[in-house]
């Protein structure tokens, strides 16, 4: 109880005449700041999402139907899975440009091992995930040990992975996968598409890790100030390598989802996803400087992008204009982000 009291009263309880005069005023301003604090707990992006959903449900009768909402969840699943990895990297103060290329490369590798090398499909699938992990590991090693700036390191792997994905079949897609694999993205579990379940599960596991596991919380410390984290005994390099590898695996998972949905591995799949992934994380309130952001925010950011794209299609907005709207939303989201007005001395 004593501790709670100390939290709300202004510091320095040693009372002087000057203090007692000032006390009522300071107590009042303490209360208003409490209200402001509670208000600031509501993530800004969530308010934006609610506004967009309400607006769209008036504009289109089809928007607010269960079927359409589940459809949105399916549409965003691949970008969503990648945005989890992107958030983890951005928390560390890094960036991963290679996600889209890794998606294509792991999908093509899996398909090539299955169709061209004749491996059992299950083995090829695991190998596809390992390819994603390998590229992520290379990203991690280049940034953690090679001291390359993440932008440069992942620019290099982005280029290399995109090239390899095309090289495997000389640019041709590979089609024809087992039925059960294609069924992943065509089946529902208790009414919810399986890819949506996978997406939510990945978000939940990662959010738990970030909030409750010391190694997850360490990402905030490393992104906030790497030297402080290092002197506090946190394994900075190991954390970087781990996170880039996780992001690589998640890009490969997204590749599997896309392959399953299309029943085809495309060497240029995912090329347009990079900017969407970064947009999702940024709209979700994460700072590219590192150290701040949350998966809840990212999930809201993902829904904003998904709902907007879906709504604009329902309203027959030209596909060429849709990116313009997304661009405006990115700018608006960051401008209204209350965290950017933080002060320190």
């Amino acid at each position: 109880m004593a501790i709670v009291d100390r939290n709300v009263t202004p510091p320095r309880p040693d009372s002087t005449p000057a203090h007692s005069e000032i006390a009522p005023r300071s107590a009042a301003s303490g209360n208003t700041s409490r209200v402001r604090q509670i208000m600031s707990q509501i993530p800004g992006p969530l308010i934006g999402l609610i506004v967009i959903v309400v607006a769209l449900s008036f504009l289109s009768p089809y928007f607010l139907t269960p079927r359409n909402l589940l459809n949105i969840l399916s549409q965003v699943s691949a970008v969503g899975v990648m945005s989890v990895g992107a958030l983890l990297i951005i928390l560390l103060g890094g960036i991963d440009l290679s996600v889209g290329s890794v998606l294509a490369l792991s999908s093509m590798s899996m398909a090539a091992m299955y169709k061209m090398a004749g491996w059992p499909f299950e083995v090829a699938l695991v190998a596809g995930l390992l390819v994603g992990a390998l590229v992520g590991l290379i990203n991690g090693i280049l940034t953690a040990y090679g001291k390359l700036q993440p932008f440069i390191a992942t620019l290099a792997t982005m280029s290399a992975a995109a090239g390899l994905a095309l090289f495997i079949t000389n640019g041709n897609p590979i089609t024809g996968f087992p039925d059960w694999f294609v069924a992943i993205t065509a089946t529902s579990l208790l009414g919810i598409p399986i890819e949506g379940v996978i997406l939510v599960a990945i978000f939940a596991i990662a959010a738990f890790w970030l909030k409750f596991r010391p190694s997850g919380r360490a990402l905030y410390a490393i992104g906030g100030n790497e030297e402080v984290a290092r002197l506090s005994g946190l394994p900075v390099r190991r954390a970087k390598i781990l996170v880039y590898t996780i992001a690589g695996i998640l890009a490969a998972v997204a590749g599997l989802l896309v392959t399953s949905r299309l029943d085809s591995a495309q060497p240029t799949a995912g090329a347009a996803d990079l900017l969407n992934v970064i947009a999702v994380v940024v709209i979700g309130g994460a700072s590219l400087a590192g150290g701040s952001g949350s998966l809840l925010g990212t999930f809201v950011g993902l829904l904003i992008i998904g709902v907007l794209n879906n709504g604009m299609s329902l309203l027959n907005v030209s596909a060429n204009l849709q990116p313009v709207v997304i661009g405006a939303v990115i700018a608006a989201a960051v401008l209204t982000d209350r965290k950017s007005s933080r002060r320190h001395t």
Partner: protein
Amino acid sequence: MTVVQTLAQTTYDGQADGDSAGLICTGLSKSYWGIPVLKGVDITLRPGSVVGLIGENGAGKSTTSSIIAGIVEANGGSMTIDGVPYEPARPSDALKNGVALIHQEIRMVPELSVAENIFIGRLPRRRGLIDRNRINDEAREYLELVGSQTDPRRPVAGLSIAAQQEIEIARALSREPKYIIFDEPSASLGQSETQHVFAQIAALRQRGVGIVYISHRLEEIKEVADTIVCLRDGALVGNWPANGITKDEMVKAMVGRDFVFSHRAPKPATDEIALSVTGLSKAGVFEGIDFDVRRGEIFGFAGLVGAGRTEVVRTIAGADQADAGKISVRGKVVYIKNPRSGIDAGIAMVPEDRKGQGLNLDRTGAENITLPWEKGLSSAGIITKKKVTATANKLRDFLDIRGRLDIPVGSLSGGNQQKVLLAKWLVNEPKVLILDEPTRGVDVGAKMTIYETIRALAETGVGVIVVSSELEEVLGLSHRVLVMSGGRQRAILDRAEATPEAVMALALSNVPREAPLESPIDGEEEFRTPIRMQEN
């Protein structure tokens, strides 16, 4: 009316007799996070006078100067210049009204020339290009005004802190200000450079400029100011003519209590060895470091900045790697290859650079405190906020941290930040505690708590190493003192032998002529003159 009364009225209580000449602040107040940091402060600054502003860290000095200079807006109160309302919304408003602030931390663009730095933001152009001849000529004039010989055409990068301070003053002068606020200009200067700044202040006063001078060094303030204003907890608690107040009275007003700062002799250490270092070397940085710290002992490291003290203790803690040498903790040889292995061996280090190496200013105090210990504090691999808060609150009481631990630690005062940093390394009791400049940028009250904590920890059997540039601090606390110069250990002195003269003589011995090992970025070229509380 006597002369003294007249003086007091013209310098302080100007409004009473309706005299509105000068910069007059009335009832300035400001609060952050709902916590009032400034509570109705009145300051009157007459043309051609110097007001000394004193107070502990967190007393509101910087907030006051930021409000006057238009960097932050006050929540309440008003300001007038020569009777005209003065409401600066941004620093450029202040400059337009003739109010300039000289920052505590020098802010220069290293790659630009001296002249460009002076005229940055208002570079004169000729045919669309920067008129270099004009800025160089004008910059030279202002530099001469402050007695600087620096070539205005050279880049700022590579200039000494003292030379940069001169440029900073020249930059302020180039705005032809009527009022200048010096925010702790001497914090990064040595004795002779400080005297140089004083000469400039005297010259400015002659020209009718009104000056606010903020400093922690009370001797200095008495020397330079006409009147002295003291803040405590954001409120005005004193306003005296500078020649009518003693240092003891100022200290008393600052801390709000009778304050006797005495370095009592520490309790004797045990015979058990806490830390043993043999032949520790790092090529080009330091070599041949040999010493033992016993349990219960406070072991001081003295020497000039650049002597290699920080590098030695960083190596012991695992922040840097040694080339040779052996370290053992409580008789057991340990191999320290990174900070984690140092921590695991029971060696904790509070680094000198609080913002860059010690604390994550955007995170809460509680999160900072538990950062190195989260694995140990978690159960089944899960750590909760409750656990973090509980751990932090225990230490808050032990260290008398005043301020909330659930807000970003950057919004606490310097003294409280330092206590949070100390708390971080006391979550698990260390076997060896290394403190590098433990009271840098910390006010007198917080200093006392930190000293008491250091003694209390030593008495529980911790081996404590204190590195400090304040001679009085390192000599007052320590059982024994190791003196370094030029990357080498010169001597280990007992408490009785370690007089300031003896230590200084050793510290100055064999100092190499080449560039110092530590970068002089933090600007100390000699021992800082501490506030000596013991006199009288």
